[in-house]
């Protein structure tokens, strides 16, 4: 059933249509004025999130049922895992947690990768990206579900209930592309009495929305036409400088688009009374690629550190070989995490190469930082502490990211053309 059947002709794109903003104002008024009781507010938000998601043109009632279905399974698993010790056999808990995580990953993989859809159903003729099934926001709510399953297994989830969980999964301001909030913080805010914070929430929320609108509707419009992905001239006919400028413009477009979206999501949530985590912190002013990743798509980076990097490192630390080689252990963990990030961006080889590229970059920074501390030469130490060294670091980091973007934005054929152009 299409959203138009449910909502008449009412449909809109989040953060881009006037009707979305009108709907948001209605939700804010209802959430702020009607219920002073947190439970009623939670019900109201759940209903509003569901209705607003159905208004997205690419999101149908069937999609909403799929999201609820996945949320029901992950809630069931997390709920059993959060039972007190002794109720459920201790030996079975890891198996149940593994089942929950694999079920969510399987769900995510089906909607993300065309080759899995080809494997499950007959390969489509003339398959293209438009032939494959997709589900809006699937990565983001899947990551949230995995987070709750793992935290329930560890026993670190407080106040676990279905209403809060379904709100956490379907919370509309962050549904499309995050930021990926943490369950405990979200639950705490959903249940808090927000009457005393209205003034500051409205002020900060509105400011963030203005910043986001400025990035999306002004800066993105300025940079997008020059980005390497939107130029009509074939790569083979472009000069090296044109290609380089295209990559600069693409980096700025990507940053303003995604951070603009994040500003609007954070601002909209704040107006409702929910604080979402930050997603960006001046990434292009960071001095090395490790710091860069600590300030770009931060909610995903911290999720990856907690739910991919540390589990890998903890597992490998049990091996004697890695226990005595902590630097190598960190490098292996980092590279495995970035390969996973690359695979998450897409199934094509260029995304995996992009992951490997950043994994190697961060590993090199880790090794360099350790070696740097051992240098005793005062002149070199003075340089490391100087402003010049910081500027060099910022420029190098930006360019390291820019060249990585070529791997991210272009397919293998275009990459081959690009490298042959740059080489000669």
């Amino acid at each position, binding site marked *: 059933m299409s959203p138009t059947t449910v909502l008449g002709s009412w449909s809109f794109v989040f953060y881009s249509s006037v009707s979305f903003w009108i709907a948001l104002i209605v939700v804010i008024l209802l959430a702020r004025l009607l219920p002073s009781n947190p439970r009623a507010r939670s019900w109201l938000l759940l209903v509003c999130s569901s209705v607003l998601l159905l208004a997205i043109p690419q999101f149908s009632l069937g999609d909403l049922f799929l999201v609820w279905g996945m949320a029901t399974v992950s809630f069931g698993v997390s709920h059993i895992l959060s039972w007190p010790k002794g109720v459920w056999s201790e030996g079975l808990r890891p198996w149940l947690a593994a089942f929950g995580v694999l079920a969510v990953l399987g769900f995510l993989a089906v909607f993300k990768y065309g080759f899995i859809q080809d494997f499950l159903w007959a390969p489509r003729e003339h398959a293209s990206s438009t032939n494959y099934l997709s589900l809006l926001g699937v*990565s983001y709510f899947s990551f949230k579900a995995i987070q709750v399953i793992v935290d329930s297994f560890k026993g670190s989830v407080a106040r676990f209930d279905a209403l809060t969980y379904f709100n956490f999964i379907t919370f509309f301001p962050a549904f499309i592309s995050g930021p990926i909030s943490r369950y405990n913080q979200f639950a705490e805010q959903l249940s808090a009495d927000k009457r005393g914070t209205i003034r500051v929430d409205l002020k900060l929320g509105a*400011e963030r929305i203005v910043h986001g609108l400025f990035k999306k509707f002004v800066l993105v419009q300025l940079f997008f036409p020059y980005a390497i992905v939107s130029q009509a001239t074939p790569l083979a006919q472009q000069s090296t400088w044109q290609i380089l400028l295209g990559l600069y413009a693409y980096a700025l477009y990507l940053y303003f688009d995604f951070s603009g979206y994040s500003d609007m999501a954070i601002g909209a949530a704040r107006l409702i009374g929910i604080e979402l985590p930050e997603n960006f912190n001046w990434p292009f002013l960071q001095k090395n690629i490790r710091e860069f990743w600590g300030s770009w798509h931060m909610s995903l980076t911290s999720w990856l550190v907690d739910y991919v990097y540390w589990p890998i490192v903890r597992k490998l630390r049990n091996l004697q070989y890695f226990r005595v080689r902590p630097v190598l252990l960190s490098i292996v963990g980092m590279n495995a995490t970035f390969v996973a990030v690359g695979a998450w961006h897409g199934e094509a080889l260029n995304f995996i190469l992009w992951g490997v590229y950043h994994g190697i970059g961060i590993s090199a920074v880790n090794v360099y930082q350790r070696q740097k501390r051992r240098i005793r030469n005062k002149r070199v130490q003075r340089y490391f502490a100087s402003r010049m060294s910081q500027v060099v670091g910022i420029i190098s980091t930006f360019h390291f990211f820019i060249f990585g973007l070529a791997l991210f934005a272009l397919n293998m054929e275009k990459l081959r053309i690009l490298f042959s152009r740059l080489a000669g």
Partner: protein
Amino acid sequence: MRKLLKPVLDHWKTISLTFEIFWILVFTLEAAATSSPPEVSQFVYTYF
């Protein structure tokens, strides 16, 4: 110089918000006025 910049720094938030709102309005009105307004690209991370 610092004295000269003080009023700007004191009201930095108001100045930057006014600047941003002004340009949002300019771009929105321009898009509304042109017969073929520039298409706003979809958010990059929508389908990730």
